[in-house]
C-alpha cells in the first residue's frame, strides 16, 4: 500500500499520524530521493516508507519514527532508521539493532604523505590484505577460550588493548571509550561464544572493508584541525562489527522476543518488528546481551586497528605516535541516552539501525579534544566514491536525537548489481581511477560496485541542507581491502 507523505521543507518529509501510528514518520530526503522511495513503496514488495510508518506504531516511541537520508529497505526498521523509546512505557526491538550488533567504523590518521602511499600502493595493499583476515569464514590470530570471550563481552576494546592490540590513547577516541556498562555474558548463549572463538580480529565480508584514504577536501577548517585532518592527509578506515557473536545473539533473541511480543500483547504491524517491553525480564535480558555484542564489536575493531597499526609500523617504520585513532562510532546500536525534549531532559533508549550517533559540541560523551566542535561522524561511501567525515549539530540533537547517516545507502539489490556489473570490470575500472582493490570475492566486488549505491555526495548534502549534520572533510579511497 502506498504511503502518504507531506513535504515539510526542502529536505524533510513527514508521514502524518494515521491508523495505529503513535507518532509521525520523518524522512530526510530531497525531491528526487522521495520520488524513488514513493515509486518503491507503490511497486515493490520491500518498502522503506512503510517500515518508517510501522516503527511509528511501536509502544512508547517518542517524537517521531525517523529515517536519515541513506534510507533503504531493511527488515522491520528501514536502514537509516532511528527510534527513541521511553524506558518506562517503551519497547526494545531486534529490528532496530539488527544482527550485526554495533557494526561501525574506526578511522585512524596516519602521519605519512600521500605520495609515499602512492609510491608503495601495491606493497601497502598486500601487507594489509595479509595482515587483516577478511572474507567468508576467515579466522583471526586472536585465539580465545570461552572465559576470555566473557571478558571481551564485559571489557570490550580494553581487553584487546591488554592483549597488545593498539595503544591506550585509542580508547579516548572510541565511542563509550570502547566499553559499555550493563553487558551480561550469561545472557549470551554458549553457541554465540563458540562461534566467536576465532572471529575476533576478522573483517568479515559483504559491505565490510578496510580502506586507505586521503583527505580530498576540507569544508570546516576548525573541525578538521581539531580532528587532525589536513589536505592530502592519510586516513585508514575499518568497517566491521560484532561478527558471528552478534549474529547469534540476534538469532537467539528472535524467538525470545517473538514470544514476548505475544505475552505482552504488543501490536506488531509487521512480523520482524518483534519487541519486548524495556522493563520486562525478556527486554532487560536482550538489552544486556546486546551490550555484550556492542563490547565484542569494540574489541574486534580495536584488534583490527592494532593489526593495521603494526602493518604501517612495519611498512614505513612509523612510531605509535604517528598513528592516531581519529574516532570510532557504531551504526547498528541500542543506547540509553539523555536528550533535551519538549518535556525537558529525558532518558531514552535510542535504536539506530544503519544510523550513526552524531552528538553536537559540548556533550560530555564527545572526547575533550573535540568537544568544542562536536563528535566526528564517519560516513562510508563505496569502493569508488568518497567517504565523509561529518559532525553533529545542535539542530540534529533536537530533531534526530543526535543522529546521522551511516553511508551512501544501497539503491540496487545485490541481484541487480550482479546482473549489471562484472567483478573483474569493477576492479579494473577502479584501478583506472587510481583505486586499488584487494578482495577474495569477485562476486562481492560486483555486489558492492559503486553504481549499486546512492550518490553519497547527495545524501550528505541532504543532511547538511537539513541542518542535522555538517560536512568537515571528504576522503577519497586509494586502497580498498574487501572480504
Amino acid at each position, binding site marked *: 500500500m502506498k504511503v502518504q507523505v507531506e513535504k515539510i521543507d526542502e529536505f524533510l518529509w513527514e508521514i502524518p499520524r494515521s491508523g495505529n501510528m503513535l507518532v509521525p514518520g520523518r524522512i530526510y530526503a530531497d525531491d528526487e530521493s522521495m520520488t524513488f522511495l514513493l515509486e518503491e513503496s507503490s511497486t515493490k514488495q520491500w518498502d522503506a516508507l512503510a517500515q518508517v510508518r510501522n516503527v511509528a506504531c511501536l509502544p512508547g516511541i517518542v517524537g517521531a519514527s525517523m529515517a536519515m537520508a541513506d534510507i533503504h*529497505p531493511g527488515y522491520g526498521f528501514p536502514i537509516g532508521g532511528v527510534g527513541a523509546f521511553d524506558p518506562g512505557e517503551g519497547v526494545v526491538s531486534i529490528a532496530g539493532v539488527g544482527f550485526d550488533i554495533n557494526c561501525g567504523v574506526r578511522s585512524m590518521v596516519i602521519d605519512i604523505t600521500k605520495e609515499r602511499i602512492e609510491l608503495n600502493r601495491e606493497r601497502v595493499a598486500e601487507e594489509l590484505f595479509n595482515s587483516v583476515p577478511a572474507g567468508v*569464514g576467515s579466522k583471526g590470530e586472536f585465539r580465545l577460550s570461552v572465559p576470555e570471550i566473557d571478558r571481551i563481552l564485559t571489557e570490550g576494546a580494553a581487553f584487546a588493548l591488554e592483549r597488545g592490540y593498539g595503544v591506550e590513547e585509542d580508547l579516548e577516541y572510541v565511542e563509550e571509550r570502547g566499553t559499555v556498562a550493563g553487558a551480561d555474558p550469561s545472557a549470551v548463549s554458549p553457541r554465540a561464544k563458540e562461534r566467536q572463538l576465532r572471529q575476533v580480529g576478522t573483517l568479515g565480508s559483504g559491505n565490510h572493508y578496510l580502506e586507505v584514504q586521503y583527505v580530498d577536501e576540507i569544508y570546516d577548517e576548525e573541525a578538521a584541525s581539531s580532528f587532525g585532518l589536513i589536505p592530502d592527509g592519510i586516513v585508514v578506515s575499518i568497517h566491521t562489527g560484532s561478527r558471528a557473536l552478534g549474529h547469534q545473539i540476534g538469532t537467539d533473541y528472535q524467538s525470545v522476543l517473538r514470544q514476548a511480543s505475544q505475552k505482552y500483547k504488543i501490536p506488531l504491524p509487521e512480523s*520482524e518488528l518483534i519487541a519486548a517491553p524495556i522493563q520486562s525480564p525478556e527486554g532487560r535480558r536482550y538489552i544486556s546481551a546486546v551490550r555484550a555484542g556492542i563490547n565484542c564489536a569494540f574489541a574486534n575493531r580495536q584488534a583490527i586497528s592494532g593489526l593495521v597499526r603494526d602493518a604501517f609500523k612495519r611498512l614505513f617504520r612509523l612510531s605509535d605516535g604517528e598513528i592516531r585513532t581519529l574516532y570510532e562510532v557504531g551504526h547498528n546500536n541500542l543506547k540509553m541516552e539523555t536528550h533535551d525534549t519538549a518535556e525537558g531532559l529525558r532518558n531514552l533508549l535510542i535504536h539506530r539501525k544503519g544510523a550513526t550517533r552524531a552528538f553536537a559540541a559540548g556533550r560530555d560523551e564527545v572526547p575533550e579534544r573535540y568537544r568544542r566542535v562536536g563528535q566526528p561522524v564517519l560516513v562510508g561511501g563505496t569502493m569508488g566514491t568518497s567517504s565523509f567525515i561529518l559532525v553533529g549539530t545542535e539542530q540534529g540533537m533536537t530533531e534526530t536525537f543526535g543522529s546521522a547517516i551511516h553511508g551512501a545507502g544501497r539503491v540496487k539489490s545485490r541481484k541487480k548489481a550482479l546482473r549489471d556489473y562484472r567483478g573483474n570490470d569493477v576492479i579494473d575500472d577502479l584501478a583506472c581511477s587510481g583505486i586499488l582493490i584487494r578482495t577474495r570475492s569477485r562476486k562481492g566486488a560486483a555486489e558492492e560496485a559503486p553504481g549499486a549505491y546512492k550518490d553519497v555526495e547527495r545524501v550528505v548534502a541532504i543532511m547538511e541542507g537539513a541542518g542535522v549534520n555538517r560536512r568537515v572533510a571528504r576522503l577519497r579511497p586509494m586502497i580498498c581491502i574487501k*572480504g
Partner: protein
Amino acid sequence: MTGRGHETLEHTADMGLRGWGGTPAEAFEETALAMFDLMIDKSGISAEDDYSLSIGGRDLTGLLIEFLNELLSLADVEDSAFVSISIERLQGEGEEWDLDAVIGGIPRGKCRKNLLSEVKAATWYGASVDREGGGLWVAGCVVDL
C-alpha cells in the same frame, strides 16, 4: 512454479529466499538450498561430511526460521560449507513443530575459492510457509547479508 525448486528474490539491502515443493519438507529443503546458493558456488565440489540437525518451532513459519538459522550457526561451528540437505522428518501440530535433517558439507578450508557470501541470519521479514492453490507448498523469508 511446479514440482520443486528455489530462487532468490530482489531486496535492496539483503536477499529474499523462496523454496517450493510437494510437501513442507521439500519446500524447506529448497529454501535451504536457495540460502546455500548465496553462500557457496557448488560447481566442482561435493559433500565430504554429514551433519545431523534437530530443531523445533512454534509453528511452520517459526520452524523454517529456526531451521535456517540453525544451519548458519552449525556451519560456522563446524567450519563447513553446506552443499546438500535432506529432511528426514518434519511433523507437528498446534504450537509444537519439529524436524530432523541430514546436511552434507565440505570443510571451508578445502573450498575457499567457492565461498561467496556470509549470511548473518534468517529474519521474520516476509517469512511465510503456505500451501498454494495447486497444492504446492511455498516457503520463504528475507536473510540478512
